[in-house]
Each structure stands twice: as structure tokens, then as C-alpha cells.
């Protein structure tokens, strides 16, 4: 009995000592302070990414240098990225699913911030940031009141991909994916944000609708866009969810023309398929940010990656793997070294005139920026409209 008491006492003391150390450690993390320096790597990094955003061609060196082994989950849409990071809501969000970083486009980034799934980062831990193009240093889709919720990484347009053997002339605009000319051989992404592409098309072909911003649509405008997409559906061979679906469809000849990303075109050309792409402006596009999960288990590796991927050489490499444009203009000479003329080809040296013509993805909200009041349709309405079209 006496011996047992002694053991209990020492156990209690030990627990108290451990707790004493644990509490201050916990409070440092829970506190409002951002880290002032990047600590030691945790050996692993779980990311949610667009395809090839952690491509082995430039990630391998990172893994060797830092020891942070990358585990990737490729998403097919911003919706999916948000969902993966958010989980099913409630206490499960913010990386409780085990993910540390997400390369969110503008239509997922604000949702993640307001859903408290991502946390602010110390932008000064990313030295390349001060060289960024001004438009991507503190853009409204990842910076709120001066607080940075991530670091911009790359941006680009959605493209019109076509098979040169079947589509003899390079298309001049987006009309071909809405016309009967190649019926049965068209593809578009299975993503509610496609409504914006239809709205953008209507902005030019039916100005009477009064569409000012393809992401801010009144009910009437949303209905019109929906009708256009419903007319498009019988022209499609399929909707693509992942980029590989589109690549496969072009490769086996099922699809001759469709909306996609430069990544698909590059992969198809690498496989010697007769594929080219054009970017009929104006078009929709994306500007991506690496965001840190609120409950990231490997924050140091995450910061190391953000620091690494924004350096000029890596920005250049990634740009040429995916077919997008870096946010760091110092990448220009490196791009030209890998592929001559690519810096100009991706408009890195004349960005403003180019990206003003790209309508970057953003989440539709009820407040209309172009008119007073809340007459615009929220994202729920978009999702339902899309379900009606595809269902």
C-alpha cells in the first residue's frame, strides 16, 4: 500500500513536469504571433495541389535539400481543394485532414480564409516576395487588411485547346465550343465556375444582358448563362474532371476541341499529338496562392516550400512545366534559358496589359461590385444551376 502510494505520487509529479513544459509550448502556437524564423523541417509535407505544382523536376531538389518529403493530392477544381482542406466542416477543418499546404486559386482562397481553414503567414520569411509583380504582392484574394494568408505563386489563363488535324484553322474566339460545328467532340470542365466562361461569352455576344463582371451575375444573367450551357451539353463528348481526363480524350481522338489549361496542351505536345492551343481574350483565368493550413502539422516544411518555389529559378521551371506565368519577374532570364522566348510568350514582361484581359477566378458573392446592393447570385445558386445543367 505504501509502495503504491509512492508510485502514484511520482507519476503525478512526472505528469506535472510534462504539463509544465507542454503548456508554454502550446501557447506559443496558439498565440497570435507569427513565427519569426523558419524552424527545423519535420520531414514531411502534405499538399493539395494543381497538377505539377510540386512536379518532381523541381521538387526533388527541395526534398533533398530540406528532407521534407512531399506527399501530393492533385485536385481537379477549386471546389475540391476547398473541400479537401475544409473537410466536412465544424471542427474538422483547417488541415485536420492532414494537409499542410494548398495551392488555392482566387475562387477558393477567400472561402478558405473566411472558413478559418488557413492561417496568416509571415510574408517576410519569403525573401522573393519583395520582388514580386506589384499586382500579386498583396492581392485582395489572399491579403486582407495587410494580413497575408499565403504567398502568390503563378497565374495564367484558361485556354482553348484544339486538334490541328480536325480543326483546320486556329480559332479566333470561344464560339466553337458553343457551336454545332464539332458536335460530339467538345469538352469543358465539370465545374460550376464554367458559368463565368459562358457569361463572359455572352458579355460580348449579347451586350443587352448588361453583364459587367462574369462572376457577379443577377438572376436573369445567370439564367441566360445557364441556358447557353444547357444548349452546349449535347455538343459535348464528356465533361472533364481531372486534367488527365482531358488529355486522354484528346489523345484517343474522342475530343477535337475544348476548354482546358496549358498543362494539358504541353503534355499532349510532349506525346507528339497534333494539338495546339489559343487564348482568345478576354478569357477566364486563375491566380494561385500557396496557403498554410490552420492546423498544419508540418509548418516549417511548408514555409521552406513557399520560400523555395518563389525563387526565380524554380518559378521559371514551374511556369514551363505547367504553361503559366510566374509572379516573380526575376524568373524571366531563367525562362528564356530553358526555352527561348518563353518569357515573352507567357507575357511575363508585359504583364499589366495581359492580365487585365484575364478575368481571374473568384467566388461569386451576393454583393455586386458593379451596382449597388446584393442583387447578385451567391455560390450556392451557381452550384445548383450547374447541377441542373449537368444532371
Amino acid at each position, binding site marked *: 500500500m505504501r509502495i503504491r502510494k509512492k508510485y502514484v505520487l511520482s507519476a503525478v509529479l512526472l505528469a506535472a513536469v510534462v504539463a509544465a513544459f507542454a503548456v508554454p509550448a502550446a501557447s506559443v502556437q496558439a498565440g497570435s504571433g507569427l513565427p519569426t524564423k523558419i524552424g527545423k523541417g519535420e520531414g514531411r509535407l*502534405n499538399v493539395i495541389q494543381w*497538377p505539377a505544382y510540386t512536379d518532381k523536376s523541381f521538387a526533388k531538389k527541395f526534398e533533398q535539400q530540406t528532407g521534407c*518529403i512531399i*506527399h501530393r*493530392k*492533385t485536385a*481537379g477544381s477549386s471546389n475540391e481543394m476547398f473541400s479537401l482542406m475544409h*473537410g*466536412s*466542416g*465544424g*471542427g*474538422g477543418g483547417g488541415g*485536420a*485532414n*492532414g*494537409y499542410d499546404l494548398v495551392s488555392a486559386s482566387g475562387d477558393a482562397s477567400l472561402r478558405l480564409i473566411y472558413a478559418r481553414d488557413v492561417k496568416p503567414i509571415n510574408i517576410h520569411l519569403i525573401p522573393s516576395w519583395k520582388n514580386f509583380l506589384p499586382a500579386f504582392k498583396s492581392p485582395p484574394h489572399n491579403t486582407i487588411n495587410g494580413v497575408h494568408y499565403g504567398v502568390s505563386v503563378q497565374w495564367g489563363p484558361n485556354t482553348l485547346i484544339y486538334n490541328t488535324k480536325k480543326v483546320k484553322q486556329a480559332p479566333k474566339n470561344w464560339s466553337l465550343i458553343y457551336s454545332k460545328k464539332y458536335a460530339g467532340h467538345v469538352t469543358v470542365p465539370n465545374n460550376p465556375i464554367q458559368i463565368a466562361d459562358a457569361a463572359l461569352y455572352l458579355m460580348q455576344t449579347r451586350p443587352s444582358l448588361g453583364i459587367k463582371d462574369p462572376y457577379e451575375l443577377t438572376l436573369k444573367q445567370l439564367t441566360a448563362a445557364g441556358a447557353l450551357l444547357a444548349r452546349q451539353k449535347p455538343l459535348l463528348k464528356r465533361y472533364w*474532371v*481531372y*486534367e*488527365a*481526363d482531358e*488529355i*486522354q480524350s484528346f489523345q484517343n481522338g474522342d475530343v477535337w476541341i475544348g476548354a482546358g489549361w496549358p498543362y494539358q496542351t504541353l503534355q499532349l505536345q510532349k506525346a507528339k499529338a497534333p494539338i495546339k492551343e489559343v487564348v482568345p481574350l478576354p478569357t477566364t483565368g486563375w491566380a494561385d496562392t500557396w496557403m498554410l493550413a490552420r*492546423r498544419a502539422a508540418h509548418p516549417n516544411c511548408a514555409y521552406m516550400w513557399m520560400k523555395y518555389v518563389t525563387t526565380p529559378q524554380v518559378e521559371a521551371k514551374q511556369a514551363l512545366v505547367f504553361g503559366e506565368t510566374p509572379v516573380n519577374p526575376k524568373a524571366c532570364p531563367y525562362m528564356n534559358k530553358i526555352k527561348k522566348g518563353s518569357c515573352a510568350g507567357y507575357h511575363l514582361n508585359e504583364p499589366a496589359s495581359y492580365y487585365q484581359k484575364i478575368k481571374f477566378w473568384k467566388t461569386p458573392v451576393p454583393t455586386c461590385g458593379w451596382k449597388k446592393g446584393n442583387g447578385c447570385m451567391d455560390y450556392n445558386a451557381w452550384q445548383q444551376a450547374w447541377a441542373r445543367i449537368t444532371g
Partner: protein
Amino acid sequence: MSSRSTRISLAVWSVLVIAFLWIPLVVIALYAFNSSNIQSWPIPGWSLHWFRMAWHDPDVRNAFLLSLKVGLATTGIALVLGTMAATAVARFRFFGRETVSFLLVLPLALPGILTGMALNSFLFSFAGITASMWTIVIGHATFCVVVVYNNVVARLRRSSPSLIEASQDLGADGWQTFRFVVWPVLSTALVAGGLLAFALSFDEVIVTTFTAGAQETVPIFILDNLRTGKNLPIVNVVAFFVIVLTVIPVVLAQRVMRDTGVTRRGAAEVTEGVEAAEIPAV
């Protein structure tokens, strides 16, 4: 009824149906040895190259390891809980006995997506737990328990309850009775149930996609790569191994059940155990 032409046509039909069942499996197994990384037919060349690559791929290794760990943990839990429930139901009469059987069968009778969704919002949203190997195990345990349960109940129904009485009359305590009387009777049912539970857990994908976070079991690895169209040659190799690896526990289980000596009934019993187990959490 058993005229010659009927026999022959039925035999031919059977062969055709069996061929229908097996051809796709054979095709995928063949693709594992495909030397090219394009999935076309006929297969241009043969090579073990992808086997080597799969062996060295850390994602593949981690997936197999995780599936193994999850399978073992699930089987353990299923064996314990299933046997307990089965003993209670088979040996005692109490109010609500049928309800217990019905409840335990629910995870199998209901579509897997319901189980998955329910656990996902309960574990992560409601209870705020972080996703980990154990959330996967919880998901698998819900439908693996009934596999063991059915096998043990079937076995207990066929053996005499008075064996335990007799053992106690002879002065054995609970533990001795278990060791010398209960265990020999139950052992093959437990082994068969355990093997089936393991195979079920190893293959499960629907519930797992909802209860796993960044963790990848083998089926999740296959699904992810199929959806994103990556690494298809490695997926073929992994698929080949999955086919082989699930064949083993199932053949063993069937053997074990058959060895009870009653061949005709043995088949029906395995059928019972298998079916009840099956529904769906495939």
C-alpha cells in the same frame, strides 16, 4: 430435366459466364507486365520494369503498409467485438435478440456511401477528431464485425451449449473452459471470419475515402491515380498484387471452412458468411 442437350448448353453457358467474370482480371494482370506506359491493346511488349518501379515507389510502399496495419487492427477489433456479440446472441435468449443481428448487418445492408458520409461528419465535424489511421479502422470495423459475427453465430448454432455446462460440472473455471472447450470449437470460424474481415478491409474503398485524410491505403492509391490518370503502369502492378493478395485469405478461409468435414453444407456456410459480409462495403 437432365437431358443431354440441356446439360451441354448449361455447361457451355457456365463456362461463358465464368470466362466473363475472369477475362477483365486477366487483362489487368497482363497489363502489369506491359513494357509500354500506354494502355493499348494488344500489349506491345513484356517487361518486369514496372514491378521494379513500384517496389521503389515510396507512395506504393506506404500504401501497402497502411493497408496492412489497418487490416490487422480492423480484424483484431472485429474478432473481439464480433465474437462477443455472437456468443451473447447464440447462447442467450433475451429481449431484442433479432434487433442485434439487424443492427450489426446495417453497415453492410446500407450503401457504403451512407456509412462513409455518416462517419465523416460524425468523427470530423461533430467530434472534431483529426483524420488518422484509426478513423479508417473505425470505418472498416463497422462492417467487418458482422463478418466475424455471422461465422461465429453459425458455428455456435451447430455446436452444443451443454459442452460448457459439462466442462463446468467437471470443475473447470471460465478460463479453462474457454481454453479447452470453447476455443477448439470456435477456432476455425474465427480464422475464417478473420481472414474474410482482413480481405474486406484491404479492398475497401468507398467508406475509406470518407474516413481517411491525407492517408492513402492501397485502394485509395489506386483510385486517386485512376481518377487523375497518373502512374497507370504502376497502378497495374499494384492492381495485380491486390488481386493476388486477396486471393490468398479467401482461398484459405474457404479451405478452413471446408475442413470442418461437411462439404455440401460447408459451401453454403461460406456463402452465408460471405454474403452477409458482402454487401457492400466492397
